[in-house]
C-alpha cells in the first residue's frame, strides 16, 4: 500500500513527462487495438462473404469426394438429411447442390461448362443466390427447363437472356445426357474465374439430366457465427448418423483459401511488434530519466531501511500505474474509433478480389481480442522496459546516491 502510494504520487510529479509517456502508451494501445480490430474485421468480413455467399460454412459430401470429385460419389436421400441438419444447434440453412461438367452450345458457339444444379429456394436462403442474378431473373420455383449462365460464360457463348442453350453431358447411368434449356438470367457470383464456366440448372432438372434422382454431391450449410465450426461439424456428423457422409468446415474444404488468410493475418503481428517496440523505447526512456533524477531519493529510501525489493516494486508500479491509465483511456479511444469504423468501414482506394469475392470497403470488428491483446502487450512492455531501471534504483549505493544533486 505504501509502495503504491509513493508510486502513485510519483507518477504525477513530472506531469509533462508522465503525460507524454501516457500518450505514447495510449497511442500504442489504441493503434494496436484498431490494428487488430481492422485485421479481424476485414478477415471476418472476407470469410463471411466468401462462405456465406458461396461455399457455406460447412459442407457435406460423400467420403472421399473432396479429394477426388466424381459424378458417382453422391449424398443419397438428401431430403431426409436436410431436415435432420436443421435440428443441430446454430445451423441456419442448408442447400443441396449437384455438380457435373459438359458442353453448352448457344447458336453456333460452344464452350465447356461446369453444370451446377441448385435448389433456388434453398440456395437463396443459404447463399443469397437471387442477389447474384445481375440480368434477367432467377429460376422459377418449379423445374421449368431454365438455365442461368455465369456472366463470363454468357460472354463466351455470346448468349443473352431468352436464348436457348443445349447441354451435352454424361448421365450417371452411362447414357449421353443432353437437353435444351432457356436462359432466364445471368449470374455474377463474385468469382470471375468461376463465372466463365458456371451454368446453373434447377436441381430437379439437373438430377433428371444426369440421372441422379434424389441425389446430390454437396450440401452447403450456413451457421450462426464463424467460431467453433468444428464443434458444429461434429454435432452434424453425430446427428446424421451416416458414416459415408462427411461434414467438413470451410477451413478443410477451402484449405488453400484458409492457408492464404492465415499467412496474411500473420502480417498484423508485425504491426503489433513495431507498436510495442515504439512503446518500449518511450517507456524505457522515461523510466531511465526518472530513475537517474531520483537517484538521491532512492538512496535516502535505502538508507532509512527500505528494502531493495520495495524500491524495485516502487519503480515498476509507477510504470504500471501509467500503463493502466493509458489502457483505460486507450480503450475509450479505441472503442470509439473501432465502433465508427465497424459501421462506416473504410473505402478502399482500389477494390480487390479475394477468393472470388470483390471488396471495395472493409470494416473493423469490436471483439475482446482487440482489447485484451493490446492490454497484455502494453502492460508487459511497460513492465519489461522498467525492469532494468528498477534494478538500477534498487541497487543504488545509499551513501553515493545521496551525494548526487
Amino acid at each position, binding site marked *: 500500500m*505504501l509502495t503504491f502510494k509513493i508510486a502513485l*504520487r510519483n507518477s504525477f510529479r513530472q506531469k509533462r513527462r508522465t503525460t507524454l509517456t501516457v500518450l505514447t502508451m495510449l497511442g500504442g494501445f489504441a493503434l494496436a487495438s484498431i490494428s487488430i480490430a481492422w485485421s479481424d474485421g476485414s478477415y471476418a468480413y472476407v470469410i463471411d462473404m466468401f462462405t456465406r455467399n458461396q461455399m457455406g460454412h460447412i459442407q457435406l459430401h460423400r467420403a472421399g469426394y473432396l479429394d477426388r470429385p466424381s459424378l458417382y460419389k453422391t449424398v443419397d436421400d438428401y431430403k431426409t438429411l436436410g431436415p435432420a441438419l436443421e435440428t443441430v444447434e446454430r445451423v441456419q440453412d442448408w442447400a443441396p447442390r449437384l455438380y457435373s461438367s459438359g458442353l453448352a452450345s448457344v447458336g453456333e458457339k460452344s464452350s465447356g461448362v461446369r453444370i451446377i444444379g441448385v435448389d433456388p429456394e434453398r440456395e437463396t436462403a443459404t447463399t443469397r443466390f437471387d442477389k447474384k442474378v445481375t440480368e434477367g431473373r432467377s429460376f422459377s420455383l418449379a423445374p421449368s427447363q431454365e438455365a442461368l449462365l455465369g456472366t463470363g460464360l454468357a460472354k463466351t457463348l455470346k448468349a443473352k437472356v431468352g436464348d436457348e442453350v443445349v447441354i451435352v453431358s454424361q448421365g450417371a447411368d452411362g447414357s449421353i445426357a443432353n437437353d435444351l434449356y432457356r436462359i432466364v438470367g445471368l449470374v455474377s457470383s463474385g468469382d470471375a474465374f468461376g463465372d466463365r464456366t458456371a451454368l446453373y440448372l434447377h436441381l430437379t432438372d439437373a438430377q433428371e439430366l444426369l440421372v441422379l434422382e434424389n441425389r446430390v454431391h454437396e450440401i452447403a450449410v450456413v451457421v450462426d457465427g464463424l467460431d467453433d465450426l468444428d464443434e458444429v461439424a461434429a454435432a452434424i456428423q453425430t446427428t446424421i448418423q451416416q458414416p459415408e457422409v462427411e461434414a467438413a468446415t470451410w477451413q478443410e474444404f477451402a484449405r488453400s483459401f484458409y492457408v492464404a488468410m492465415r499467412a496474411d493475418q500473420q502480417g498484423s503481428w508485425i504491426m503489433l511488434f513495431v507498436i510495442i517496440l515504439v512503446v518500449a523505447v518511450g517507456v524505457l526512456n522515461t523510466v531511465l530519466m526518472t530513475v537517474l533524477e531520483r537517484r538521491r*531519493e532512492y538512496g535516502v529510501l*535505502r538508507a532509512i531501511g527500505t528494502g531493495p525489493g*520495495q524500491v524495485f516494486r516502487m519503480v515498476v508500479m509507477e510504470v504500471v500505474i501509467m500503463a493502466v491509465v493509458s489502457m483505460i483511456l486507450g480503450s475509450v479511444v479505441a472503442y470509439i474509433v473501432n465502433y465508427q469504423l465497424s459501421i462506416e468501414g473504410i473505402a478502399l482506394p482500389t477494390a480487390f478480389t479475394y477468393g472470388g469475392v470483390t471488396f471495395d470497403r472493409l470494416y473493423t470488428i469490436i471483439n475482446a481480442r482487440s482489447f485484451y491483446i493490446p492490454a497484455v502487450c502494453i502492460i508487459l512492455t511497460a513492465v519489461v522496459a522498467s525492469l532494468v531501471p528498477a534494478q538500477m534504483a534498487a541497487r543504488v549505493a545509499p551513501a553515493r546516491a545521496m551525494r548526487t544533486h
Partner: protein
Amino acid sequence: MNADNDHKVIIAEGVTKEYSDNGLPVMALRGIDLTIEQGEFAAIVGPSGSGKTTFLNVVSGLDSITEGSVRLDGKLLSTMSGRELSDYRRDRIGFIFQAYNLIPVLTVEENVEYIMLLQGIDKKERHRRVRDLLAQLGLDGMADRLPSRLSGGQQQRVAVARAIVSRPALVLADEPTANLDSKTALDLIDMMRRLNEESGVTFVFSTHDSMIMARARRLIVLKDGRIDRDEAQA
C-alpha cells in the same frame, strides 16, 4: 561478545576508507578506533574533508570500509548482507541528514510514519506516536503538509521525528544544523539533547559549528581522516 560490549552501540576498530576521486585514491579515514556507548550524545567535528560524513556512513553500513571492522550492537557489519543491513538500519538506526531528505511526495505525517509502516506497526499505534511526536516537536497542524510547504527548520524537525519515531537505539545525524539559522540550529540541538536525556537514545552527529559543539557531551575531533582528539564535555 563479552559483557563489557553490552552497552557499546558502535565499536570501530582500525577503520580505513579509501575511495577513488577521478581516478586518484583518497584516504577518507585512516585507522579509526572509536567506541560509542549507549545513551551518549556525541559530536564528531572537524573541517570539511576531515571524514565526518564518511565515518557516519561506514558505521551505519551505508558505505563499505577498506580495512578494519565495525560492530553495531555487537554485530559485525561486514558479515551482514545488503538485506540484513537494510533491515538493521530500519529497526535500529535513525538518520538525520543535512539536506533533510524527506520524501517529497509524502506529507509530514506520512514521512514520519514511513519507517513504522516498513516495520509493520499497526495503524493506531503509528498515529498515536506520530501525533505525540509532532506535538512534542512543535509541528502541530502541519501533519498534512508536503515538505515543500515547510521552512528548513520545520523540515529538519520532521526529519528528527522520522528518525526517532521508531525508537531506534542510535540516531546518526550528518550536519543536521548546516542549513539552519543559528537560533533554529540551537533549538534543534536542544531538542535532540532533551530526547537523549528523556528517552536514552544515543545520538552521534557531525558538525563544524562551534555553538553546536558546545552542546555535545562528547567531542570527537577528526582531522585528515584520523581522530585528533576525543574528550568529554560538561
